[in-house]
């Protein structure tokens, strides 16, 4: 006779406890996201109450007269990120295409390792390299000739500087490249193989297959990768702080010094005294995290839909 024994009570309890313990641990990440926003909001209140919406459009940043406007930093953050994306996108998608291509396993292995290492190098190492190696080179070989040759073009004219909006954009482009490449690879791999095979069977060349079949099929995912990289670029702190020149004004030229939200916090927060000044800096952080959460959620949903939709 077969009799199914009920599990002993002790073990049932343990399963419940197991679920409870692991479930409690799973609470931490969502709580941290909410906590980050809540804590920064709490500490930004003196600044929010004092400046209101003017904070976001004011162009003055004066700790002496306690007049704070965030526009130069918002401009610097958005401009560096946009230029970085424009530079890194073609390169990142190319790397993604090579990594997602069937065959050539050895080459893909090397390229994949390279992308991982590029992502793993600490930001501050990019910073010191950009400051001492890249910035002087870019200054003499690119910024000076271009600003001289295009002295009538609005955003390129003016006297160039070694530490500038453009230098920061360039190092940002390098740092977001792994994000762009890795996610492009994932979404390109998720394109059903049948599509590629059908195109090749119809006699399409490699480029026709890639440009007219593969890339359109992965469009939403690549857009998601771009937005995700944008999110990373907006929040990058250390390397940008080291090469952007730290000048709190909206620059006339992309070769002039500028400032970003993250770098002004990095530079000034430890020395900010009183109540309004640190609160203003925390409000910059609040703006940064709210934008970052919004951009990240949007991008993740886009990428997830493409990658999971193909399965």
């Amino acid at each position: 006779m077969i009799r199914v024994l009920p599990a002993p009570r002790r073990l049932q309890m343990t399963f419940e406890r197991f679920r409870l313990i692991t479930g409690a641990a799973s609470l931490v990440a969502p709580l941290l996201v909410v906590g980050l926003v809540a804590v920064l909001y709490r500490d930004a209140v003196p600044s929010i109450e004092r400046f209101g919406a003017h904070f976001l459009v004011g162009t003055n940043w004066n700790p002496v007269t306690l007049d704070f406007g965030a526009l130069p930093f918002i401009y610097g953050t958005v401009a560096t990120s946009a230029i970085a994306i424009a530079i890194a996108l073609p390169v990142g998608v190319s790397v993604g295409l090579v990594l997602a291509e069937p065959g050539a396993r050895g080459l893909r292995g090397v390229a994949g390792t390279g992308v991982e290492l590029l992502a793993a190098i600490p930001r501050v190492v990019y910073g010191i390299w950009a400051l001492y190696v890249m910035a002087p080179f870019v200054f003499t070989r690119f910024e000076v000739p271009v600003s001289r040759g295009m002295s009538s073009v609005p955003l390129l004219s003016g006297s160039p500087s070694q530490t500038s909006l453009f230098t920061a954009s360039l190092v940002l482009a390098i740092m977001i490249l792994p994000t762009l490449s890795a996610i492009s690879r994932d979404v390109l791999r998720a394109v059903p193989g049948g599509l590629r095979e059908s195109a090749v069977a119809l006699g399409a060349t490699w480029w026709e297959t890639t440009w007219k079949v593969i890339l359109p099929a992965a469009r939403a995912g690549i857009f998601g990768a771009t937005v995700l990289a944008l999110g990373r670029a907006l929040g990058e702190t250390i390397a940008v702080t080291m090469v952007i020149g730290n000048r709190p004004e909206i620059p006339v030229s992309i070769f002039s010094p500028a400032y970003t939200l993250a770098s002004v916090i990095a530079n000034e927060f430890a020395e900010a005294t009183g109540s309004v000044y640190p609160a203003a800096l925390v409000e910059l952080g609040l703006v940064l995290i709210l934008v970052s959460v919004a951009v990240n959620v949007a991008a993740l949903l886009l990428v997830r839909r493409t990658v999971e939709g193909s399965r």
Partner: protein
Amino acid sequence: MRPSRNLWRRSSTAIARSLVYGLTAVAFVPLLLVLSYTVLKGLPAASHLDFYLHVERPVGIPGAGVAHAIVGSLVMVGIASLIAVPLGVLAGVYMAEFPGGWTRTVRLAADVLVGAPSIAIGLFAFALFVAPFHHFSGLAGAIALSVLMLPVVLRTTEGAVGIVPGGLRESGLALGLPRWRVTMQLMLRAAIPGVVTGALLSVARAAGETAPLLFTGFGNRFLSFNPTEPMSALPLIVYHDALTPYPSLQQQAWGAALLLVVIMLVINLVSRAVIRRQARYVAQL
């Protein structure tokens, strides 16, 4: 008409293809440049034994080192790991075991945390663990780093447990093992290489982070093992010393950068070896 069209198609695909591969090659130029310059400029400082044994000295006095930063990094990353790894593993196990709406929320939150600006995490740790005590501390730095590490550990654990073949779970349950033991002793155990890889990668990430430490660990010119005091860290040395006008300090910054890069390379190599073992092990199951 026809031959010229074919010629156009063939040449355009050749040009486009070489462009794509060329751009891919361009992507690795910065990697090679960063690595080679760091080795070149960092070796003079990092090849002295003093560099590892002594602490900061006034500019001009030889024999300065970064021992205080090495200790600070070890202590802060160590404490951060003690917080983030157990929490991350438990949460990751929950997500692999109980898929559903809540798990999707946790996953999204973790991915958002990975992308959150690290400077904002520094402000958060400052508000909770520095401001109430009125002084900077290594502990606050460790907590900031653990916030960065947690989502990495959590996501890799979830992934590693998720790829263990379901047959293992069914075998365990068929033998009458309670479900929590199947999870912890069979599934998690089979996933250990993946979990270890995740923990290692998160340690590498935390060891290289600067921004969250600026107003938490803050930096300390002296050797300190006490996490309730301000502590230095290797990335802080690179950041602060690189921006000074003194060549000797700049050299020290490059040395610390080299040390960071070496740590990163070693952790990556080890984690690759571990992950290969996992792949082989899972293939056997």
